């Protein structure tokens, strides 16, 4: 590591001054980042009372000489930047030379450090910013920083600290975040002498992600990998059923730095669009590699926030990365639709029961006593083109060339996620080819007039007919939209809308775009607008509230375009109107068509509102439920 220098004045002014230390977690963050900068591979964090009484971070990094140790605690002393250009292309974690002195000024601070080549180490004690002791000491290679009685001399700030539990949970999230972005490094976190987190250096990124998101996601965590010339998006995203009501399980890293950015969170949500219910957040671990000159990480002193110079491109990459990851996962329709069962097997791979005797030929065995007998057996021999109206019909799939489930003596196993990619640093995950789908499944019938019951390779599957049809209609409409001219219908009674000034601004900016969609809207003096024509697709609706809603949403979510908003809104609406309802009986041919169409969808697993279209129970799930397998 280069020797420490004092930052030139001009540079120090360019750096946003502010509070480095807000709470114990921010101290931990600064210290651990220093350790990482120093090339440590083992980092131990110990805290007592949520870090209020003690924070100790020890590493096996490069260590410091006595002189450098003393310099390190001076304001703006850093070994990490040297020129103005450097400041704009920061690749190391710390760069402001501010952390150690700030921390030392509000605590009882001790640093013990030793370089590998030196015979002895250095111990520095500072209390409330005053250097009280420097001495030579015996020490292991590396650095240990101890921060005791944080804010002991600033009671006002001490008051703002939350309960021990809250503080430790912040610290633990932070350590998790750091562990995620540094998969090769071992992190251990002790709280009140107990080991609470242990990220072994043997973990690969997938295992580390599972460790952090919870065992349950193991089978339902999908790799993200998307890149262009400049930006690379990697990581993992969980199945939408693991949704949360806050964004707390979305970990975002930009150049391995844990950050938070609302725009990125929205980009993630857009990636999940059509798969999540409104107001829900997915579990995602996302690493963004982006050239250093395209991102400004220095906008907030605690360095959690970033500014992208070309944010639209970044957001788009993220959205695409996630949606394509989910799309790939969905190709394995069977495992995707399965209801998650926690801890089915230890490594998350639900093993096919190839050799478990009672299930060797599940369909044939079951034949005699199974629900197939619900139906009229004579129907089995009926010709293909006779629609079977009776409810409760059961018929084998009699189309030539389509595999019949019954013929499969064994399950085609659900493809497990690869457990280990070999290179522990790489987040690459490859996907196996897709499962056989649902269109060849055996239709067992319609139940409760609302759900379709099928037996497919993934097991017993229930399909919500309305949700499924809505998805099909939605995709058809979306596809159609691209091909059709925009037609707008003039209104005999133009509608007027009254807007606030803020809304006027927003509307004025998108008038042209709206016109391209078929909305002819003209200013009508002051904050009033008049709607003269509407897209003919929705000309039966009152336009005022619709336009108002679009404006509101545009105001709330800046980086979303009117066109997107509008398309979503109307397409979902008309898809919903045109879809078969619950409580509508469907014949076999209709069901067969529905399955086929659904399988042909880009996103077959969710209705456009984000609700699931199907739920499946695989053999292991059923066995578990029947306690055949514990």
């Amino acid at each position: 590591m280069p020797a420490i220098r004092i930052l030139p004045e001009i540079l120090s002014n360019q750096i946003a001054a502010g509070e480095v230390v807000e709470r114990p977690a921010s101290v931990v963050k600064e210290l651990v980042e220093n350790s990482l900068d120093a090339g440590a591979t083992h980092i131990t964090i110990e805290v007592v009372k949520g870090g209020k009484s003690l924070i100790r971070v020890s590493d096996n990094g490069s260590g410091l000489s006595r002189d450098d140790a003393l310099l390190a605690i001076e304001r703006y002393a850093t070994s990490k930047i040297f020129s103005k250009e450097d400041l704009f292309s920061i690749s190391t974690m710390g760069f402001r030379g501010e952390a150690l002195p700030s921390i030392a000024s509000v605590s009882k601070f001790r640093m013990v450090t030793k370089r590998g080549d030196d015979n002895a180490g250095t111990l520095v004690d500072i209390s409330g910013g005053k250097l009280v002791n420097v001495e030579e000491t015996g020490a292991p290679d590396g650095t240990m920083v101890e921060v005791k009685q944080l804010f002991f001399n600033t009671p006002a700030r001490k008051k703002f600290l939350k309960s021990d539990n809250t503080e430790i949970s912040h610290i633990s999230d932070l350590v998790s975040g750091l562990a995620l972005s540094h998969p090769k490094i071992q992190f251990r976190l002790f709280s009140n002498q107990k080991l609470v987190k242990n990220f072994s250096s043997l973990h690969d990124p997938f295992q580390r992600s599972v460790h952090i998101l919870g065992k349950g996601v193991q089978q339902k965590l999908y790799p993200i990998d998307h890149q262009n010339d400049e930006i690379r998006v990697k990581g993992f995203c969980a199945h939408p059923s693991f949704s949360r009501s806050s964004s707390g399980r979305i970990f975002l890293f930009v150049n391995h730095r844990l950050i938070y950015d609302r725009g990125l969170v929205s980009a993630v949500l857009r990636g999940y669009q059509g798969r999540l219910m409104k107001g829900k957040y997915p579990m995602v671990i996302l690493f963004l590699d982006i050239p250093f000159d395209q991102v400004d990480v220095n906008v907030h002193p605690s360095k959690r926030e970033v500014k992208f110079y070309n944010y639209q491109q970044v957001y788009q990459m993220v959205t695409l990365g996630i949606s394509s990851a989910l799309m790939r996962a969905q190709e394995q329709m069977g495992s995707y639709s399965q209801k998650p069962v926690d801890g089915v097997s230890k490594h998350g791979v639900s093993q096919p029961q190839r050799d478990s005797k009672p299930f060797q030929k599940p369909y044939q065995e079951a034949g005699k006593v199974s629900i197939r007998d619900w139906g009229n057996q004579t129907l089995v021999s009926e010709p293909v083109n006779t629609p079977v109206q009776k409810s409760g019909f059961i018929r084998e799939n009699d189309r030539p060339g389509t595999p019949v489930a019954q013929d499969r003596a064994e399950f085609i196993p659900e493809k497990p996620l690869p457990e280990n990619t070999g290179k522990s640093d790489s987040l690459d995950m490859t996907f196996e080819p897709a499962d056989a789908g649902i269109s060849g499944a055996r239709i067992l019938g319609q139940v409760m007039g609302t759900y379709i019951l099928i037996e497919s390779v993934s097991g017993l599957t229930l399909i919500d007919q309305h949700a499924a049809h809505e998805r099909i209609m939605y995709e058809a409409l979306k596809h159609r939209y691209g091909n059709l001219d925009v037609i707008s219908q003039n209104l005999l009674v133009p509608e007027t809308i009254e807007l606030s000034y803020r809304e006027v601004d927003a509307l004025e900016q998108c008038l042209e775009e709206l016109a391209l969609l078929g909305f002819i809207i003209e200013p009508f003096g002051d904050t009033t607008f008049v709607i003269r024509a509407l897209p003919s697709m929705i000309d039966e609706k009152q336009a005022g509230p619709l336009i108002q809603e679009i404006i509101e949403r545009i105001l709330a979510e800046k980086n979303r375009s009117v066109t997107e908003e509008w398309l979503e809104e109307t397409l979902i609406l008309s898809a919903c109107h045109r879809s078969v309802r619950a409580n509508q009986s469907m014949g076999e041919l209709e069901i067969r068509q529905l399955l086929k169409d659904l399988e042909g969808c880009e996103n077959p697993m969710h209705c456009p509102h984000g609700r699931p279209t199907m739920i499946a129970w695989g053999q292991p799930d059923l066995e578990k439920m029947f306690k055949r397998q514990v």
Partner: protein
Amino acid sequence: MKFSFDKKKMTDVLARIQGLTSRKTNLSITSDILVHATGNSISITANDLETVFHGTYDAHVESEGILSIHSRKFFEIIKEYPDEDVLINEVENRWVEIGKGDSLFHIVSSDYENFPETPQITDVPFVEIKAAELKKMVDVSSVVGFSGEEKRIYVLGSLLEKVEREECLFLRIVSTDSRRLHCYDAPYEGDLVLPNESIIIPKKGLSELGKFISLNDDTLKIGIKDNHFIVQKENESMMIKLLEGEYPDYKPVINFESMVPIEMDKTLFSTVLKRVSILTSEDYKSVIFNFNENELLVTITNPEIGESKEKVMIGYTGEEVKTAFNPKYFVDALGVIDKENISMYIKDSKSPCIIKPYDNDQLICVIMAMHIS
């Protein structure tokens, strides 16, 4: 309470009010009818809180009384009843017995005290109108409907106005859904007194009124009072509560003075439109009208289905006008025009098209243009 009546006559009455009593309201009792037996008649009332039907019919009343009974069930029972004479008897405490002997029903009735009150409107200044004319008013305006979640008053209801044209007084009904407008003037007899506010009659009520008018009737009495539109026959009446609100100024749109008239044959035009409509779909419902000298070219190009072209000879000498419309609105409009010769008015690609019978202005239909980009 005990009475009997003629099955056939009552079935007719009950059939006509099923629409009224099947409308969903906040009160479940609106799916009942109120049956009141007095003297030697019974009266039947249906009330969906907006429209009230009231009728009095001959019956043989043994003992007087009131009951509130489920309209559809009552109708179905009477309709299927084997004998011509149906006996109704309130056995005890709201248990109603229908029929006697071999076919017998016992039906639970509701507490008639909960039946919504019929507005008491007296001294209505009635005028007389031919049943056929009133029926026409209803028909012309109700083709221009509304969709389920509609909130705009001027789409939910039709405007009623008194107009003077060529020194005659007419009762005018105007109906729009903002994409087209129909306007019909009906002659009447008497001194029509109307309030100052716009009279907007809900289209729902109008469609019930359509069933109320029988072409056997010669003339009917109509009047507006206490915020209700009232139609009276000899023994039956209907009251429709008016909607409150402003009606937009429609007069400029029905003015065709500055437009070019084109004479057309209704049947021919109608069949052409029906043919081009074949290629419309829910997403694509516009047809291009291209007016050229002595020729109208109607085309549709639906990228999903295909295209079609129809050429019609017309007496047009103006400049070329290319405009687009939803053909359904033409088909609807032509459907309410009884005359064979029609006039069609156009101006430019953005202006509406007006069609009306060739030889009078009693009915005017305005259709707004569409544009395709």
